[in-house]
């Protein structure tokens, strides 16, 4: 048998075509290598993050003062719409698929993903969707909100059609990617790697992929109904024909609530790798983590109408959705408890990945609390569609999912690039992000409680101070992310050489069985897991 590690990935004279790749651009266009594809996902995600960020800053600039300053109301609405869609589908989701691509094969001891060519297609559908989104904006856009509620969408201009097709393509990409991930996890594990020995990150992706396969087709159905209502005279969302615009909301949120867990669960996974590594202790309550994550996934299908308390539901419905929603806090609480218990009496150190994981822990929990507040029907009725909701979901999606992704990037960068990042700059990145994030979003709770509605370019005079604080925070947060870009580029180009296992407490296969940087092909012979 040959050595476990194969180091010939980049050799040009490699006769074994299996191990080479075409030169130049074609390497990236045609690649079937999970590491190449993972990198493309991550870079794509970062570019989308910057694009969505510019849109967010446009919103915050307009909201600097009451009255109309720099953009038209229609354009303002388009900014909130495309900002939401781009961040959710273009930045956060692809970032975690990038992690899945890089990490899952290495963490379960597989030579690659189960379907490398389909893996390539999952990625190369994303630029198509991005082109459609941008051209949608160029032909006049559709300021319908990222939730794309009917009947506004059935009346919007041609930009709406491009938006709908973009959602279709994103759905195709997610479904193909997820089928690949599930199959890889179920069928490609190294001997001895039983399901209950899998690293937590792999578990969270198994569950996430299941959610994606279940709900992306439903979203595709919803936007298809919008399309036929627009152009072919169907009456899904048209009361005159016996349909109902509220039907759209039901279908959308049947997708939408699981979707927020599609974003949150892989974030849980990353944090569940990072916290044990820097506590130098195994994850506390591994089995309960698996069960809690699975029950979150199942419950997430049964709570969708907590987004619709104000649409005129029967009281019985409101009560059911209220209690079911609050139930999700139980497994979520189990997870938070386990992360804290993992740190209990650990020998903790606070390198950048750990800092971001802790930032996640504090702020995600806070976002969970405001979620519980919103879950209560009588409280939600006045808070719905105010800035309180905006604050809630930015705590879970930015300080939750995005911080977790940043933690993961710092954690695995040494393994990916072979170099260490600059720890001082990394810490600056964390603290600036942490401070500016809270400046931006904490005050939005007060704005919402005071009654400032979301998705409106103008506001009453008394909201000015908090809005100005929020805008300052937003610009600070945006600029800080350029520092992140600098740290990553510096790490790739001139970082110090990293050891095979830079983190004491890391114990998954990519750290214990592979050199740094991870070679182009890994685990062609599966390792044996005890």
């Amino acid at each position, binding site marked *: 048998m040959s050595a476990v590690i194969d180091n*010939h990935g980049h050799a040009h004279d490699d006769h074994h075509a*299996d191990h080479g790749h075409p030169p130049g651009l074609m390497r990236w266009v045609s690649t079937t290598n999970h590491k190449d594809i993972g990198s493309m996902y991550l870079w794509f995600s970062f570019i989308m993050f910057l694009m969505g960020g510019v849109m967010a800053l446009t919103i915050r600039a307009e909201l600097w003062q009451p009255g109309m300053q720099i953009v038209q109301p229609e354009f303002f609405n388009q900014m909130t719409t495309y900002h939401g869609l781009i961040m959710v589908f273009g930045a956060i989701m692809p970032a975690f698929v990038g992690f899945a691509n890089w990490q899952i094969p290495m963490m379960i001891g597989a030579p690659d993903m189960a*379907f490398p060519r389909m893996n390539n297609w999952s990625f190369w559908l994303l630029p198509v969707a991005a082109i459609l989104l941008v051209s949608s904006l160029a032909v006049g856009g559709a300021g319908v909100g990222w939730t794309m509620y009917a009947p506004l969408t059935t009346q919007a201009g*041609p930009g709406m*059609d491009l938006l709908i097709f973009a959602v*279709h393509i994103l759905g195709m990409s997610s479904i193909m990617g997820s089928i690949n991930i599930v199959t890889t996890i179920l069928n490609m594990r190294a001997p001895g790697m039983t399901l209950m020995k899998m690293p937590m990150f792999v578990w969270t992706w198994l569950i996430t992929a299941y959610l994606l396969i279940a709900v992306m*087709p439903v979203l595709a159905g919803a936007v298809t*109904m919008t399309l036929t209502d627009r152009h072919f005279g169907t009456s899904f969302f048209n009361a005159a024909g016996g*349909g109902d615009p509220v039907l759209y909301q039901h279908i959308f949120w049947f997708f939408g609530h699981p979707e927020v867990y599609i974003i949150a669960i892989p974030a849980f996974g990353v944090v569940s790798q990072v916290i044990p590594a820097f506590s130098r202790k195994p994850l506390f309550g591994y089995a309960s983590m698996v069960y809690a994550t699975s029950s979150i996934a199942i419950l997430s299908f049964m709570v969708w109408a907590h987004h619709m308390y104000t649409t005129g539901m029967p009281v019985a419905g409101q009560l059911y959705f209220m209690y079911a929603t609050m139930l999700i806090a139980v497994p979520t609480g189990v997870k938070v408890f386990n992360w804290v218990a993992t740190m209990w009496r650990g020998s903790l150190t606070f390198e950048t990945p750990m800092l971001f994981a802790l930032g996640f822990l504090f702020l995600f929990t806070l976002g969970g609390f405001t979620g519980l507040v919103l879950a209560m029907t009588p409280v939600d009725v006045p808070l719905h569609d105010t800035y309180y909701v905006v604050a809630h979901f930015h705590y879970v999606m930015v300080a939750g999912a995005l911080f977790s992704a940043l933690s993961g990037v710092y954690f695995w960068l040494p393994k990916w690039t072979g170099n260490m990042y600059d720890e001082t700059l990394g810490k600056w990145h964390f603290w600036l992000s942490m401070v500016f994030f809270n400046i931006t979003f904490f005050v939005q709770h007060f704005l919402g409680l005071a009654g400032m509605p979301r998705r409106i370019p103008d506001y009453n005079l008394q909201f000015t101070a908090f809005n100005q604080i929020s805008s300052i925070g937003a610009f600070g947060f945006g600029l800080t992310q350029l520092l992140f870009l600098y740290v990553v580029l510096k790490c790739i180009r001139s970082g110090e050489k990293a050891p095979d296992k830079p983190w004491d407490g890391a114990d998954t296969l990519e750290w214990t069985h592979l050199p740094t940087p991870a070679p182009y092909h890994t685990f062609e012979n599966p390792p044996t897991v005890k």
Partner: protein
Amino acid sequence: MSHATPTHNYYLPQPAAYPIIGSTALLLMTAGAAMWFNGSSIGAWSVLAGALVMVYMMVLWFGKVISESEGGLYTDRVDVSYRWSMSWFIFSEVMFFAGFFGALFYARTLSVPDLSSIDNKLLWPDFTSAWPSSGPYLTDPFTPMAAWGIPAINTFLLLSSGVTLTIAHWGLRENRRGVLNLWLFLTICLGVTFLGFQAFEYGHAYSEMNLKLTTGIYGTTFYMLTGFHGFHVTVGTIMLICIWFRCLKGHFKPDHHFAFEGVAWYWHFVDVVWLLLFVVVYWL
């Protein structure tokens, strides 16, 4: 070299250009459709071009997969991957249909009854809720589709096709190629006949019954559900034809024929969807 001998038993393909061709095709199709739906005739040509590129890509990609399979590259481990992935793909299809069935359920139990409730009396005083309904405003009279004519025959055809396909599969497993080719052919005939009847039914509905896609929520759910199902039967029939030609060429072994089984799973899935359709769209 350390890896002169194959060291892993999982086939990993070379870099490939099929995906980027497919993405290009989708861009042409979607951008074209958006133009077309908004009144630009170039759009239709773009859709056509995209569809042709897509077919070209599929012929190349599937051709490659078939040659790899016949070349013995697909070990049992790879076979298991195909099984998992096809199962999950069918699950995603189930969820797609669930969305449309959900819309039908919602219309029948919630939106139509609500529209005749006290809340809406001011707007539509004369509307009384019943099913089938085309809503309070679209009052053009129409005839709903009855269950016991063509739809019942179609149910019979699809159920029989499930049986014929199973006989063909059994022939393949016993290595009785004559049985395989014949019964697979019969399955295709049943599928095509189903589609013919379906097309006839649509024509009849449009010309004689005034039942159209625009006939309120009844027409909407009727055509969208049966239409998407019909589309799936079409795809399934094309897949059956492909594997039939492969059978004629002598492809597949008694113990190694996932392409056949995958198509069979898909066909049975389409069959089950039809049964549900027959009950909730035509019958009840």
